[in-house]
């Protein structure tokens, strides 16, 4: 696939949280790029750092967290070095974000119309009338029926799916180059989720914006993403295009995850799934060497002592592992 120019280049991002109980290295050296018009899926479970990464990109990390290293190059400029004033101009206009819980991201005391209008007025020099027109257009664009009526409604009067559409409308209001979707469909029913996914795909085609699609659901990224970065305990452990990740997973974690999640295509039902042993380590007690080693069936002495680097083992396929899986290995069966 022809990749457009680089829009977002995250290099060795490190965001640490300095708590009373110790330092939590939420993001510990993450690197990935998003090209124009591309959808990058950032996949991982709890503790992998994906949400903190997205907040770091937006420069929304608050005490006790702090970005301690790395760069976030957006359209050629490092966002880490920007002032809060400069970031405010970028947020909502060039980079937008939608979250998991639309009820808490929308202000309950303002109508949805007002909230979208605010997003427009803050970033664009237009009249209120113009902003209102645009808002209604946006509501229509995101598939909300009777947008003129809905304009005056409050968030609690709308269903979960509708609210998420309003969030998307707000996020799209200034035609951002990059949309960050942080578990935006996790709280939705599956039929509503399907609607929202189709909407996002549709908007993406229409506007050509890039999407950073953050989720724990592998099935979602299979559908939405062009490239996938798999995160584990603050680091990217595998990074490649969507087909390579699903057809030729190389990192034992990715491989294990793909095998252990039941899907509609799983052949033998009512039999034990090949599960990954153990649990995600506590951030206060990270294992030495490769963080995945206590759970990895292929771990060697070297894995327990050294942390592998993210290396390109095949063109366009990066893995952080001393002994990547080749399809022949059946250790999880």
């Amino acid at each position, binding site marked *: 696939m022809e990749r457009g120019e680089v829009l977002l280049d995250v290099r060795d991002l490190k965001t640490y949280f300095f708590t009373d109980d110790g330092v939590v290295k939420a993001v510990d050296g993450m690197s990935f790029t998003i090209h124009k018009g591309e959808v990058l899926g950032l996949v991982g*479970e*709890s503790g992998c750092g994906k949400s903190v990464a997205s907040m770091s990109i937006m420069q929304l990390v608050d005490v006790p967290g702090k970005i301690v290293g790395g760069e976030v190059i957006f359209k050629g400029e490092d966002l880490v070095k920007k002032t809060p004033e400069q970031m405010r101009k970028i947020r909502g206009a060039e980079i937008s974000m939608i979250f998991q819980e639309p009820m808490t991201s929308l202000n309950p005391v303002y109508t949805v119309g007002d909230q979208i209008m605010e997003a427009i007025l803050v970033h664009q020099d237009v009249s209120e009338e113009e902003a209102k027109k645009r808002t209604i257009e946006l509501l229509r664009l995101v598939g909300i*029926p009777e947008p003129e009526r809905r304009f005056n409604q409050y968030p609690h009067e709308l*269903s*979960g*799916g*509708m609210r998420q559409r309003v969030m998307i409308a707000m996020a799209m209001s200034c035609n951002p180059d990059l949309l960050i979707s942080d578990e935006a469909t996790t709280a939705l*029913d*599956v*039929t*509503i*989720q*399907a*609607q929202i*996914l*189709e909407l996002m795909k549709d908007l993406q085609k229409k506007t050509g914006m890039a999407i950073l699609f953050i989720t*724990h*659901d*592998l*099935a*979602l990224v*299979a*559908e939405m993403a062009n490239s996938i970065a798999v995160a584990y305990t603050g680091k990217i452990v595998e990074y490649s295009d*969507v*087909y390579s990740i*699903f057809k030729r997973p190389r990192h034992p974690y990715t491989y*294990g*995850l*793909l095998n*252990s*999640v*039941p*899907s*509609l*295509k*799983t052949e033998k*039902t*009512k*039999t*034990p*799934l*090949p*599960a*990954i*042993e153990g*649990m*995600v380590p506590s951030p206060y007690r990270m294992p030495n060497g490769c963080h995945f080693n206590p759970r990895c069936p292929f771990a060697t002495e070297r894995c327990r002592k050294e942390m592998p680097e993210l290396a390109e083992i095949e063109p366009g396929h990066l893995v952080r592992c001393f002994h990547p899986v080749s399809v022949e290995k059946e250790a999880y069966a």
Partner: protein
Amino acid sequence: MKKLLEVQNLVKHFPVLGGVFSRPVGWVKAVDDVTFHIFEGETFGLVGESGSGKTTVGKTIIRLIEPTKGNIIFDGKNITKLPESKLRPIRREMQIIFQDPYGSLNPRMPIGEIIREPLLVHGIGDKKEQEERVVEIMKLVGLRPEYLRRYPHEFSGGQRQRIGIARAIVLNPKLVVADEPVSALDASIQAQVLNLLLELQQKLALTYLLVAHNLAVVRHISDRIGVMYLGKLMEVAETKELFTHPLHPYTQALLSAIPVPDPEVKKERILLQGDIPSPINPPSGCRFRTRCRFAKDICAEKEPPLVDVGGGHYVACHFVKEGKVVGYSQ
């Protein structure tokens, strides 16, 4: 096969209170005339989205919530209206696993006590025997017995779920209602807990009512599945049959909405229009008609009954006759 549980015309309406005197101004028709049965030793999956009533069904059949109408026949006994004193011994036979590993364990009780409590309450064995049984159960669910004096907050989500499971099986029940047992867990832990449930079912001859919204999970461990929508059962069938020949338009849409972890599968999606209606004011006739692509006038006038279209496959739709209707293939 023996029926362990029979649910007949189960109804549960929750009052919506309002006004100065907190009078009921409306009713949430959470469960509205649901009938099905579960065979001994099988896993019956109950699926549905929000407002479907599946969780209410799960909690009502073990009398955690009192039914408004209908009959619950457990192991041949009608337990619907039994007073608490007579119900108590029967409670030993039917237990529940909750969804939230964080909220379902008392933060001030050490886990050994949590698991021991059912034995204590039902007066089974003396203290020493109880403690032995707790250790036995902990080992069975994969928890180290040395930790029985520790408190829930010291454990991870997956471990807490195991504690909840231990509590549910310590009395050796016949039926276990599993209410979204893995939804709150990380993907890599879900498989572990699902495997544990399968293993326990084998070892202890358990019958499961699995309530869940994740169809892939339900498909993996259920023998038969019931699909609910707005308080009613739309379709009931054996798992394989449901996924290869879904007959109800809702089931078809539901199945098509599930994302598949394979980038090469191009989804032909049946997109439902609009949102799920409120269970306070469900649509007349067939509840699904407002979003159904085949809806006709009769759907608003008459409610379709749940009929057997052959081989234990039940569908509630006016346009299904003898397993032939709007086809859909994977």
